[in-house]
């Protein structure tokens, strides 16, 4: 059952082969068995979870079930969940019980999905290995010596180890797609503004976007159907008609379902810095796409190498502003001993934040400080436009862009933990789409030395449905997305 798709699980529930309580308990049992070693979940609440499963069984019995009713999901701990400990992976919020639900969680609640628990993550989503979490690192289910990627590392490990049917993540610079690549599953970062940020603890507000992390493109489409939609409580939420992201999947049958599709291959994504074995796997996946009828076009994203410098101005700048709210007054960590109010702020923040979060606050404070704003923040926003314009030009030549998701497979824990610049380069292929606000997907494309490799698909604004079709077409003729670690079966 743990390898079944969301659709199959839905059929099992609808046909009464299994109840939601039984299905949920199966996953809770796996969590009890494997989570002590993997550390994917940082908050579990058996009673709350089973109460939701019982409510789902009532809905299924009275015929008011929706596609995800009764399906057990893992929620990244960045989402406020009413009555649940919600920490964002930080000591600062270690005792914070969310008083309300994030929009994404209330959407899943309305859909009747079951919340299995809150998943581990890099502190305030700042990291690419899950090693900055106050609650400790997460093991990559494929190799316990390696990291799962980050920042959505707990959700990633939970999906890969089948400790949930699917999960949520957030992606500011690659935090859904890079762990999807390193753990071997399908992860989607939607167009900026498609999924409401209400109740999602802010890191860099002009880049943060929530999305699904699941075994397949079809599962991601079902998840996105629930997550996407206008919400007036997020000032950047886009007011668009609801879409059914599964609508085109059925057409991806036959010998050449992608005939006429133009795939752009940016030369900058296949240059120095890409691991040779990863490149081989990615090229093989692209060859498979040619067999499916697609043609490939060589393109260029000339400013893409500036993505990391631009991101490390904009994201810390926004983070330093967003994280100024943690002052120890109304919630969060307050120092046990202090002199005056200023001392309380200084000590509470110094004690509550970890090293990487402090570094980013300091960078952000510096680039926004008097005399430096134009040279850093404004300049970065200007180059951000150049990066977005590169994509506009590219999409005149092609329908979808493909390349690697991450420059390498999962690295060993501790390998990059003390070198922020090396860590930041993990997101070299994912950051540009965050800056441009474009959607991106990582799908499993094979293995290198026993470790998963992801293929990245980048699409035009609001093109999620087609991107999911294109990912689904590949998953109809390959089985990489069905693989799971032998030791966890």
């Amino acid at each position: 059952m743990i390898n079944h798709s969301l659709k199959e699980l839905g059929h099992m529930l609808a046909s009464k082969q299994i109840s939601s309580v039984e299905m949920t308990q199966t996953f809770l049992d796996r969590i009890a068995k494997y989570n002590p070693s993997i550390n994917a979940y940082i908050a579990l609440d058996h009673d709350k979870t089973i109460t939701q499963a019982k409510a789902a069984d009532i809905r299924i019995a009275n015929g008011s079930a929706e596609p995800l009713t009764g399906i057990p999901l893992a929620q990244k701990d960045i989402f406020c969940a009413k009555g649940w400990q919600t920490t964002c992976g930080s000591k600062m919020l270690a005792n914070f019980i969310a008083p309300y639900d994030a929009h994404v969680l209330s959407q899943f609640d309305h859909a009747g999905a079951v919340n299995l628990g809150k998943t581990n993550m890099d502190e305030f989503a700042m990291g690419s290995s899950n090693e900055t979490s106050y609650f400790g690192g997460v093991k990559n289910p494929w190799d316990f010596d390696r990291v799962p990627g980050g920042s959505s590392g707990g959700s990633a490990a939970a999906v890969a180890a089948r400790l949930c049917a699917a999960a949520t993540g957030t992606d500011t610079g690659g935090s859904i797609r890079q762990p999807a690549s390193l753990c071997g599953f399908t992860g989607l970062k939607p167009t900026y503004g498609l999924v409401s940020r209400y109740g999602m603890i802010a890191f860099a507000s002009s880049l943060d976007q929530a999305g699904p992390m699941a075994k397949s493109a079809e599962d991601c489409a079902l998840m996105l159907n629930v997550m996407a939609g206008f919400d007036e409580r997020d000032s950047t939420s886009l007011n668009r008609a609801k879409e059914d992201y599964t609508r085109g999947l059925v057409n991806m049958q036959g010998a050449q379902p992608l005939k006429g599709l133009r795939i752009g291959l940016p030369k900058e994504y296949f240059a120095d810095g890409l691991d040779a074995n990863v490149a081989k796997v990615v090229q093989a996946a692209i060859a498979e796409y040619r067999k499916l009828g697609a043609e490939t076009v060589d393109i260029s994203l000339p400013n893409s190498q500036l993505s990391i410098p631009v991101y490390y101005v904009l994201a810390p700048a926004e983070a330093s502003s967003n994280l100024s709210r943690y002052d120890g007054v109304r919630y969060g960590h307050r120092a046990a001993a202090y002199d005056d109010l200023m001392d309380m702020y200084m000590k509470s923040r110094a004690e509550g934040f970890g090293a990487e979060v402090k570094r980013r606050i300091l960078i952000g404070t510096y680039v926004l400080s008097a005399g430096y704003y134009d040279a850093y923040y404004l300049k970065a926003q200007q180059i951000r436009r150049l990066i977005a314009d590169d994509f506009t030009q590219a999409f005149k030549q092609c329908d979808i862009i493909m390349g690697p998701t991450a420059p390498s497979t999962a690295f060993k824990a501790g390998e990059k933990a003390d070198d922020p610049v090396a860590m930041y380069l993990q997101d070299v292929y994912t950051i540009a789409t965050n800056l441009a606000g474009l959607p991106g997907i990582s799908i499993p494309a094979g293995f290198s030395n026993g470790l998963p490799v992801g293929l990245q698909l980048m699409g035009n604004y609001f093109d999620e449905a087609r991107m999911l079709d294109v990912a689904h077409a590949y998953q109809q003729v390959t089985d990489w997305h069905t693989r799971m670690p032998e030791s966890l079966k």
Partner: protein
Amino acid sequence: MALNISDIKRIAHLARLEISEQEATQTLTKLTGILGLIEQMQAVDTTGITPMSHSQDVVQRLRDDVVTKTNMREAFQANAPKVGNGAAEKAVYGGLYLVSQVIE
């Protein structure tokens, strides 16, 4: 521009982060590396380019001037930190939050 230890201390103060000598030294090395990465931007000519903050060029939505939020004071105050300085109770009093005296 090269940073020095006093820059780090000044930035940390602006950010309201207490920092020890040792932390400031370590931070200087790391921040210098990160700023080296950021410096690559300076080679780009951005004359006349409009800064981009949102991909969709949306305008700020306005809402009607009516009450939309319910009072959640008790729920919010349940998350108040402990007073500190020897007092273990929550830093709330009469629906307000307690901090050190700021007016003589």
